[in-house]
């Protein structure tokens, strides 16, 4: 007989809608940036420098969110910045997840020397301060989108390995794994068909969290001018520029910061919601 838990279908909830909505908006902005941007994000107009957003006095309706100290349109720059933020989030997040989760699954299920090697590696890795590690890596690899993605994967795979390893280990001790073993299933078959589906909800939650973290790391690197070339607008770069003129034009700092904040928050909230969705017991 189905018990009560089977009947409770969790509603996606307001926060899932809000976070999903913001991310969808961002995806659309990123895709259609060239079409919907009112201005060229790189075009400077020193006569229109530091124009405030539309509701302030002295605003120019052509520049909806105002301009920075070089007279570049903030809205356009933010739309283009979304492109980079999302690319980094998706590509770096997914790659980090693949590398980390695979190693974690191997360590947690196969145990033995593989676990020994991977776990020690994780311990050593986590002893490095991540931001300094990132800066060091970029210094070695050179700036550019690929370097940022590589740096994020290299730094953050441990986050997945640790959690997935622990989860795979506890699943590996369950009787259903023993039964599959008795029935003659291979180790790989058990890892993929029996263990992985049970670890998946955790992986999905971590993946979305990681996408948020990737956005932050990219912003940090842009802030210290180690991201991609300065002629491409990034949120982190905008925040860095805004910092110098915070007393004359607060909006240059606040708008990209707010976009960054909403994006990271949305990723983590989305993860929570998806975790419930992927878990058959809660579904």
């Amino acid at each position, binding site marked *: 007989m189905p018990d009560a838990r*089977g009947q409770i279908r969790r509603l996606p909830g307001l926060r899932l809608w809000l976070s999903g909505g913001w991310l969808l908006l961002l995806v659309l902005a990123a895709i259609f940036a060239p079409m919907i941007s009112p201005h060229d994000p790189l075009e400077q107009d020193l006569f229109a420098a530091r124009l405030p957003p539309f509701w302030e006095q002295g605003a120019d309706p052509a520049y909806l969110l105002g301009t920075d100290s070089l007279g570049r349109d903030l809205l356009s720059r933010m739309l283009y910045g979304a492109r980079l933020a999302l690319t980094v989030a998706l590509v770096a997040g997914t790659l980090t997840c693949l590398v980390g989760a695979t190693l974690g699954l191997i360590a947690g299920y196969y*145990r033995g020397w593989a676990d020994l090697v991977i776990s020690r590696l994780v311990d050593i890795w986590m002893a490095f301060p991540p931001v300094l590690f990132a800066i060091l890596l970029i210094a070695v690899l050179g700036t550019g989108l690929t370097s940022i993605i590589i740096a994020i994967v290299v730094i953050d795979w441990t986050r997945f390995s640790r959690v997935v390893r622990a989860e795979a280990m506890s699943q590996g001790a369950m009787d259903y794994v023993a039964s599959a*073993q*008795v029935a003659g299933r291979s180790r790989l078959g058990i890892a993929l068909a*029996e263990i992985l589906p049970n670890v998946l909800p955790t992986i999905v939650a971590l993946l979305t969290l990681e996408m948020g973290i990737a956005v932050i790391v990219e912003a940090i690197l842009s802030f210290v001018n180690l991201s991609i070339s300065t002629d491409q607008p990034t949120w982190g770069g905008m925040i860095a520029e805004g910092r110098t003129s915070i007393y004359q034009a607060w909006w240059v700092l606040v708008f990209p910061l707010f976009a960054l904040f909403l994006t990271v928050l949305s990723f983590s909230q989305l993860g929570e919601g998806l975790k419930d969705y992927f878990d058959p017991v809660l579904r």
Partner: protein
Amino acid sequence: MSYLAIKDLTVRLKNGVPLLRKVSLEVEAGEVRALVGESGAGKSMIGKAVLGILPRAARLTGGKILLDGEDLLTLPPKARRERIGAKAALIPQDPLTALNPSRRIGPQIIDRLVDILGWKRPKAEARALELLDEVHIQDPGRVMKSYPHELSGGMRQRILIASAFAAEPKLIIADEPTTALDVTVQKQILKLIREMQERHQTALLFVTHDLGVVSKVSQTLTVLYAGKVIEDTNVRAFFEAPAHAYSQALLAATPKYTDPDGSLMPVPESIITAVEQEVAAFDAQLNG
């Protein structure tokens, strides 16, 4: 000839501490043998050794396991796995963790038939429905589509019994299959295991610590203490007059429903000391 013959099986922890001390026992084809002993006596360890699922910390250091006349331990790992899969199966102790929580019931049973017998899916699915019907599950079609958490403990144990018998193994190891269930369900499950065993003519090694259960299901039994065989006898002889002092005390310790307080007698200290000495002497003989 016996279907399962274990000879001088020794299992040790990695640090050398023995878990099983030269255990020998046989299960005839179609016979039910109970394996009794207190917690930690090594009952389950014997089943795990036979099925090749010993925990990582334990190591098989000596002895033979003959399944259907074939020495499992001399086979290469892959062949051994295939042999065990085709000829033996496990009814696990805890129905809560013995089914994969993120997969539906149907595929979990069908997998056994596909893996072991190499059947095509439609044929396996039809057989799975039959099996669920055989273990008295109503509406097998719906149950096949359910997730484990949607079913009760008793239902899950029925499903595990169905999937153990699915590929017609000739040996089933039941590792305390009723311990995790409440008393009313226990009785039904015992009856079901017995019924399935008779219908399929399967040899059954029934691991339990409950002597009350032993008299209901089995013909022969092996008493284990600290990984050593204390007594190997048939059930009737055991309940009339156990040969070993420890077995007598164990039998006397079984509470009777008519006098639950007065009949609850722990195994006396002197007998524990005696049996410990016997094990120590056996160890000395082994090592010396």
